[in-house]
């Protein structure tokens, strides 16, 4: 009996997987059609090889600039968070100093506040610094993360103390211990944070939309969103643009599946 049932399980999983994937298949097919065949009734299901839709995206938007902005923004945020969060997380997990619990509580309190509460004052800071429509504006607030500190602290707490004590007896200072011993050991945690930060930075809409209104300085997410209402009709080109914009993170996901899943599982079960 239990030999037969996996067939039913597979049937359910295959049908639901198809439902998850079908919209993307339709997106790819549409992106390769002319506008007239995309809007044909009844629909046609064969892609037509209109690769020029992908080139048209670059005429519609400063897509190359936006792509570069997004890469620089995501890379900056990932590097900053991995470094700064791991430093703070290591201190909270392993160093003793007065006020540690109070400060950790303050860090955590940031996690509980909906991000929209930060936005107006952050905008004012950017405006006062003359940073509106700049790369700094989309990078700098994203360098700091209470979530990252929390996630990595859990990792550091799980690492064996003995190695650290041995290094201390050998005369290594806190920076040496952090940099040459703890960081390499915490690598899975760092990769998980990097991967999650990349996902959130790349897909972030609200902040980039608010702070950079010049199309040349926008990120892909904001750039695509700004097309709404202007080019609603040219769906094949829109579909091509959305595909290019999503592809890098999907590619990273396919290569680093385990790290993605570890990171997300950690936000749930260890949180």
């Amino acid at each position, binding site marked *: 009996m*239990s030999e037969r049932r*996996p067939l039913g*399980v*597979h049937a*359910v*999983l295959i049908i*639901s*997987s198809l439902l998850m*994937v079908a*919209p*993307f298949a339709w997106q790819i097919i*549409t992106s390769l059609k002319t506008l007239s065949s*995309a*809007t044909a*009734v009844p*629909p046609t299901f064969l892609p037509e090889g209109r690769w020029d839709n992908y080139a048209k995206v670059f005429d519609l938007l400063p897509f190359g600039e936006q792509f570069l902005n997004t890469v620089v923004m995501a890379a900056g945020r990932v590097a900053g968070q991995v470094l*700064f*969060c791991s430093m*703070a997380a290591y*201190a*909270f997990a392993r*160093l*003793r*100093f007065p006020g540690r619990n109070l*400060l950790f509580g303050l860090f955590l*309190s940031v996690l509980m*506040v*909906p*991000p*929209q*509460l*930060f*936005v*107006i*004052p*952050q905008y004012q800071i950017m405006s006062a610094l003359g940073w509106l429509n700049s790369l700094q504006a989309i990078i700098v*607030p994203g360098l*700091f993360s209470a979530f990252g500190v929390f996630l990595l602290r859990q990792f550091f707490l799980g690492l064996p103390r003995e190695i650290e004590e041995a290094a201390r007896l050998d005369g290594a*200072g*806190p920076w040496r211990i952090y940099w040459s011993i703890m960081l390499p050991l915490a690598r899975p945690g760092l990769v998980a944070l990097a991967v999650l930060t990349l996902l959130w930075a790349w897909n972030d*809409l*609200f902040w980039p939309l*608010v702070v950079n209104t010049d199309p040349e300085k926008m990120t892909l*997410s904001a750039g695509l*969103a700004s097309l709404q209402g202007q080019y609603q009709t040219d*769906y094949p080109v829109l579909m091509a643009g*959305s*595909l290019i*914009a*999503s592809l890098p*993170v*999907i590619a990273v996901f396919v290569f680093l*599946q385990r790290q*993605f*899943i570890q990171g*997300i*599982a950690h936000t*749930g*079960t260890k*949180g």
Partner: protein
Amino acid sequence: MTGRKHAASRRPWTEALWGYAFIAPTGLGLAIFYLWPVLQTAYFSFTEWGAFGGHTWTGLENYTRLIADPEVGRAVLNTLTYTVLGLLGIPLAIVFAALLNRPKLGGVTLYRTAFFLPVVTMPVAVAMLWRWLYNGDYGLINQVLALAGIDGPNWIADPATALYALIVVGVWSSVGYNLIIFLAGMQAIPKELYEAASMDGAGRVRQFFRITLPMLSPTAFFISIVSVIGSLQLFDLVFVMTGSGQAARANPAYSRLQTVVQLFYERAFVTNDRGYAAAIVMALLVLIAVLTVLQFRLQRRWVHYV
């Protein structure tokens, strides 16, 4: 004796300095960009902003205006509907996680990838894609319905269907994320429980209801907290589906799609009514706090801790 005391008092002192140095970058960053802004937003919610950025103290005026504003009422109602119905995604994720958790089931990576694809895809792109699928004239959904002789509505431009169409996209794009967390939770359940249960003659279904579900309830609680907080902040989907300003108002279903955060965006950055916008997000903070406390209260009835 004195030497030991000396060493013991000296090390914590330098250690403390290192501690502060290590937390300094993130600490300062969070203070400047996150903690101080919260206080400022709270202050702004009691002010009115002039055209050139100056602001004057107006006391509770924004809040009395907020309570009387039908647009805010609608946005709150839409957001709450989206939030509550969005919770239906949780049982769905549990079922799929249970199916994927069978030992020796082939193709798990492939299925997991399929469910996870919407999670990693840019939300703006997801919204564009569904806008196209939902298109009343050429959308795939209505074209497929037409094959069955059904005349589908103009999903996101029809007040009767717009919000539900949005909820479908929300569930579709988050089910994979929840599934992963449930799968991790299921794999942490001790195998002995199942072995003991099957020796007692309990079948798979019974095991699922008697062991898996109760053991998973803390995970489900965590996910319901996170989903509620996330749903209350819905913005990306609505923004892309409706746009903002004049263009958005042209959508007949606009009043059914407006959410609290979208209203906040419009007031803060389109009409530059920042004091009022600050009051709107303060109301959002209260809404999140109330619903979170409510969930913590209700958890005693359904969450089982081992």
